[in-house]
């Protein structure tokens, strides 16, 4: 047993005695003797001096703009995260304010705001949550408004599976139909209303799989594990990108309107940037983006 043990110990000692020596000796010797090190040293010393006026100017500009520009903590419904990223670019360009965005389920944001989350603006997937927050004194009264009306689609990642009448629902050509949890997600509720309107709830119940959010529902379909499902048009149709698969734009007559409201939360009441974001959401520039993603207004 002693033989094999001595080996590793010995090599470890050799390594230890070698390493500090190299690490310690290299900079001092090389910085004086080695031309490469000398060059590096002079380079790092000269650069800031020569460019100092520029650097000061840039830093000064940054400071003044920081003093004016603010940051907004935004909680956004998963289905609107894509459009908001686009709108955020225009908002930052126009106002200098920046956005810190959390995307998720509206219901979860409600619980988090109740628990004291620092969100300043809520861009919800429904109109009930903002109204409820106003009623409970957690959002600023009078600031909630409908920024978009959601468009429900029956979407499949397979081209040609979904026809433009939704007849595929009765075809039996699928094993799984994905819907967002109707208790939590407005798009899930709308999807179930469509099935009810078509009288298919009982027939399709064994094939239903439920995503916790509209984003997870999309992921079930995108990976092909569910052949089709109800998602937001904004998820299937990304401006500038070809539509993957096939979809049926569900007529609004088959389900209750998906009114998506935004509201200023109490935490953002004194933040000028948060107020500016809500104003910007109503601007023509923002509306153009919202419409391009397939939302009504």
């Amino acid at each position, binding site marked *: 047993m002693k033989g094999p043990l001595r080996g590793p110990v010995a090599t470890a000692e050799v390594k230890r005695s070698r390493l500090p020596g190299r690490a310690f000796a290299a900079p001092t010797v090389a910085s004086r003797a080695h031309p490469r090190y000398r060059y590096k040293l002079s380079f790092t010393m000269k650069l800031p001096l020569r460019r100092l006026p520029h650097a000061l100017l840039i830093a000064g500009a940054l400071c003044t703009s920081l003093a004016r520009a603010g940051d907004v903590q935004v909680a956004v419904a998963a289905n609107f995260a894509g459009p908001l990223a686009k709108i955020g670019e225009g908002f930052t360009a126009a106002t200098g304010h920046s956005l810190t965005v959390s995307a998720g*389920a509206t*219901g*979860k944001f409600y*619980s988090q705001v109740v628990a004291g989350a620092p969100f300043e603006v809520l861009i919800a997937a429904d109109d009930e949550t903002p109204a409820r927050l106003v009623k409970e004194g957690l959002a600023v009264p009078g600031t909630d408004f409908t920024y978009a009306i959601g468009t429900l689609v029956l979407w499949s990642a397979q081209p040609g599976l979904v026809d433009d009448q939704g007849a595929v629902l009765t075809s039996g050509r699928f*094993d*799984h139909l*994905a819907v967002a*949890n109707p*208790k*939590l997600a407005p798009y899930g509720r709308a999807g179930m209303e469509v099935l009810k309107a078509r009288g298919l709830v009982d027939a399709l119940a064994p094939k*239903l*799989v*439920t*995503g*916790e959010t509209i984003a*997870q529902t999309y*992921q*079930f379909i995108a*990976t*092909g*594990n*569910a052949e089709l499902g109800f998602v937001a048009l904004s998820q299937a149709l990304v401006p500038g990108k070809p539509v993957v698969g096939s979809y049926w734009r569900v007529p609004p007559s088959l389900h209750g309107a998906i009114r998506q409201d935004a509201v200023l939360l109490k935490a953002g009441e004194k933040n000028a940037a948060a107020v500016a974001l809500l104003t910007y959401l109503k601007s023509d520039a923002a509306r153009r983006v919202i419409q391009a993603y397939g939302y009504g207004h």
Partner: protein
Amino acid sequence: MTAADWSAVRLTAALAFTTTLLLLLVGTPLAWWLARTRSRLKPLWASLVAMPLVLPPSVLGFYLLLAMGPQGVVGQLTHALGLGRLPFSFAGLVVGSVLYSMPFVVQPLQQAFEAIADNLLEAAATLRASPWDRFFSVALPLARPGLLTASVLGFAHTVGEFGVVLMIGGNIPGRTRVLSVAVYDHVEASEFAQAHRLAAGMVAFALVVLVSLYVVNRPRAEPAGAAR
């Protein structure tokens, strides 16, 4: 409790039993091999087993969803075998749980096997015990505390699993809506009373299980002797 909640309880128990049974069948030989092997690949295999401890369930769930899907290797295999696809099915949850609870079963077993002194097995060999006999008559009885720990932790960890099940299950009542997902649903829907009933039950279950494990596996005043 509602019928839906009871169905979640039954489903969770069925999932945990099936997973633990499979893990003991697969994990015991694996742990024995890991404990005894001198293979240079041992660190790699041990790491693979331990991976679920450090990987977030979202990572495991994401790759399972891809692998079991129609484009995935596993998905194409199960489809070709006429088994259908695994996501959104009980079988899929079992596969996910077996992977996710693997370290909780293999590691206690491996430690128990490693603690068995070589000379005991050598003595058995000199008495002409075959390798199988040595394993079943010497190693397995000596590893009994490890076996118990492995079974209890495997079961309890499967009951407590959430992320993987959420990602590959599709939340289907009676098929893939296990307790942890049912609690999550109640909480999300602000149905705190229902959530409390299930959640408090799970806290009590976890406590009872772990306390009994520690009591049963308590080192005795007179050590088993043979193990040292």
